[in-house]
């Protein structure tokens, strides 16, 4: 078998060298009654050609997503990824290696982590960045746990307008911990601020708000921060569409204490939802309570700059049940992916792409409103995703768009079953579209 180099003859030799007469002697600690006495009931081995045909045929049972541009985002955005990034990621040194426990053989990974941390620090204006939590949802939950550890309080206030999966994940993660969770409702597409004043108190560990929120609205984070800080609670900002950082104010400038950010937009394919990657960002003073791996700069024995994983005393392999998290394997290759992506895009690219996203989304919204078939729901500021009311049948709209090779926008009602959302559609627009296509979309829907 091409993946198993040792030959039968070699195995016989090795068994002899070991000093046993047969393989079974080596597994005598597996009780006989549990040893399988017949092969697993699985399909026989396929040749590479057969395998390729089989899986390619399965892939073809999907829509041809390459040619079907999505008008849906909702936490997973199709952005353009330069081939230079994809090609570099294929270097085996990046993807066939382990977690960089041995820095002398892992500077590629470690420096990449450090550079990514530096990028995110500049994008968010935060001090300390954990480059890889699995995704936005788990990062959000980890941020909540971190706030609980930091404040020793037991109430978490959450905006209802964070991504529904993130919300569900927080509940799952917090379930064992006897935490009071209060949800802030939506008002005009934004998290209601009024109610917050009544709920915020000295037992509040943190307020969690997503901006742009799940419905696309840009939240007034600085005002939230101010209110939260009055009660010495922590302000947590969730970012699901990291491209927005290109033109929006950085959370660090808005008083935010912890940021959990999904960076799928920075060079990761949609992949049916995973693997993506998220960062956690915080202020220097909170570093010892942050979960996950961090790269830091140091010197090597030759006096040169070198990178290592640092502040390891927080981690499970050292602290076990007292660790700040159980995280071990994370999404580090996606850190490299995002790092390469951000390097290519740079100052100007991230700005221009973000600007273009916003402009195109607003262009489409205006066009759709003009068509007469759509109505505004909220009067909120948004980035590249907006909620809009469709006057026709949503089923029909889906059909039309699919026929024209567009992936329809998200119908939010199934996720937020409130009457006012019955015909509400969440459109996401990124730079992968062009004017022709946006005009075409408008015209087929009019």
């Amino acid at each position, binding site marked *: 078998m091409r993946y198993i180099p040792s030959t039968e003859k070699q195995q016989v030799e*090795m068994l002899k060298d070991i000093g046993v007469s047969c393989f079974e002697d080596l597994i005598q600690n597996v009780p006989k009654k549990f040893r399988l006495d017949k092969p697993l009931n699985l399909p026989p081995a396929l040749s590479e050609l057969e395998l390729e045909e089989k899986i390619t045929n399965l892939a073809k049972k999907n829509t*041809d997503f390459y040619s079907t541009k999505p008008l849906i985002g909702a936490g997973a955005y199709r952005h353009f990824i330069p081939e230079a990034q994809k090609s570099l990621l294929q270097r085996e040194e990046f993807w066939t290696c382990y977690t960089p426990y041995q820095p002398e053989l892992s500077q590629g990974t470690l420096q990449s982590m450090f550079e990514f941390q530096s990028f995110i620090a500049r994008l968010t204006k935060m001090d300390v960045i954990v480059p890889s939590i699995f995704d936005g949802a788990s990062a959000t939950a980890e941020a909540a*746990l971190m706030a609980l550890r930091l404040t020793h309080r037991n109430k978490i206030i959450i905006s209802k307008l964070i991504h529904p999966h993130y919300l569900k994940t927080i*509940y799952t993660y917090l379930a064992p911990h006897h935490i009071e969770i209060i949800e802030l409702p939506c008002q005009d597409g934004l998290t209601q601020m009024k109610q917050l004043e009544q709920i915020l108190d000295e037992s509040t560990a943190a307020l969690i708000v997503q901006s742009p929120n799940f419905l696309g609205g840009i939240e007034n984070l600085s005002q939230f921060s101010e209110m939260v800080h009055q009660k010495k609670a922590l302000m947590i900002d969730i970012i699901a569409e990291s491209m927005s950082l290109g033109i929006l104010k950085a959370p660090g400038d808005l008083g935010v204490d912890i940021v959990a950010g999904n960076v799928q937009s920075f060079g990761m394919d949609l*992949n049916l939802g995973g693997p993506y990657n998220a960062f956690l960002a915080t202020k220097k003073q909170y570093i010892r309570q942050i979960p996950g791996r961090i790269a830091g700069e140091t010197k090597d024995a030759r006096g040169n700059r070198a990178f290592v994983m640092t502040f390891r005393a927080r981690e499970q392999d050292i602290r076990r049940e007292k660790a700040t998290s159980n995280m071990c394997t994370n999404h580090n290759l996606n850190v490299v992916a995002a790092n390469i992506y951000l390097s290519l895009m740079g100052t100007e690219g991230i700005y221009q792409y973000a600007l273009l996203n916003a402009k195109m989304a607003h262009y489409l919204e205006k066009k759709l409103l003009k068509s007469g078939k759509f109505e505004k729901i909220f009067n909120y500021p948004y980035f590249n995703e907006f909620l809009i009311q469709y006057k026709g049948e949503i089923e029909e709209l889906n059909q039309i768009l699919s026929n024209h090779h567009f992936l329809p926008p998200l119908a939010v009602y199934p996720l937020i079953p409130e009457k006012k959302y019955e015909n509400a559609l969440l459109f996401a627009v990124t730079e992968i579209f062009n004017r022709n296509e946006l005009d075409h979309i408008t015209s087929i829907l009019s």
Partner: protein
Amino acid sequence: MKLIFEKSIPGRDGFSLPSDLFEEIEIDKDIPEDFLDKNKKNLVEVSEVDVIRHFTKLSKLNYGVDDGLYPLGSCTMKYNPRINEKMASLGQFTHAHPLASIKMIQGSLEVMYQLNLLLCEITGMDQYTMAPASGAHGELTGNLIMRQYFVDHGEKRTKMLIPDSAHGTNPASAAMAGFEVIEIKSTSNGTVDLDALQNAMDEHTVGLMLTNPNTVGLYDGGIESIERIIHQKGGLLYYDGANLNASLGIMRPGDVGFDVVHLNLHKTFSTPHGGGGPGAGVIGVKERLIPYLPTPIIDYNANEKYFYLKDNGEKSIGMVRSFWGNFAVLVKTYAWILSLGPEYLYQASKTSIINANYVLKKLKKYYKPAYDQYCGHECTLTGREYKKYNIKTLHIAKRLMDYGIHPPTIYFPHFEPYAEETIMIEPPESESKENLDEFINVMIQISQEAESNPEILLSAPHNTPIGKTDDVLAVTKPILTYDDELRSIEQEK
């Protein structure tokens, strides 16, 4: 090596823009000024060529499985087949939006559905969730399932038993699930002390998290008793499957009586580690625990012949992440299982067990084994003999690098009596006898150097891109971003 920031030149660029920038839209009319950043975020300005060279150079500072032996114990650094990568990169998969209607993602759903069936057969479990992103994430998920099970059954169980030999993620995960962790000592044979287990297990205890073969590479011969002790007291048995590479086609955790199983697809099932992930830590359970699995579950409607995402109902622990799983990793797993079939899955485990025992046998004279018995797919040696020369296993590890070999695991296991002096060697089935012989020879040579020339070990590595790193400095003088570095240079002035 320079940082990418140190290569930045004002006005240079590495991206491309379409000609139509929708200039007529004035975004500051739509987004209030308060929310917009007046300044562009200062990132970097480099060209595509700069980026290509920077990361090509960075890559060459890494060592991967493709560069040679990588016998990290407990990590199963096996060959990552190329065809798997290609299968995962098919456009219909990579561009699939997770919220597309299910009729558009039938192919992807079928992959997940079929993978569930294959994994169930391989492990003897009844249903898997594909959600968890890593082993530890799976452990947390598994713990929450067990917690929910007892909540649902009105039982108050708060303690989780974990052998001292367990991987650090086990206690950490149990703690995240709100359990009190009770450490079970190992016997001098390295396996679970049955008396201690019997004493610790009671009606307030959730159960036991066990790795088998355990993290020192030993099959626990007491597995039948363990199962009895836990189940007798109504507990649940959790199988940490990170070491499943010793068991394929040999033993199925489900047959042994494990209730919850996590698999590290990025270990046993050949998907790459990626320098720390992404992997996938899928969780399989027995029938009675299915209702508690995270939602959704991939199911098949046999009447109307389509695959779908089924809400797992009220008893489910909920969601542990966004969307459905690390799909790209699942495709690679699926491809690997189909490529090996039952015969070669068994051969994989058999070969890795023979490999580990061969290394153990050849090196035991030079590095006293932690346990004098046959091992599973990895063996645990020690460097105790060389303490007298001031040599720790760390030095042996660093010296191995000079010979072009990635060191085995040395920081683990950390429990007495072998703390810090263990060397865990896992030579998976993709390593040939010649590679092992070379490794063995180098290890013997190093053992001789330890006696005759300890200095060369103490100052190792010598031939690596960088020398030994100062880990303490990284904490005492933290520099975590390029701006930290700029500030520290500023301060030094």
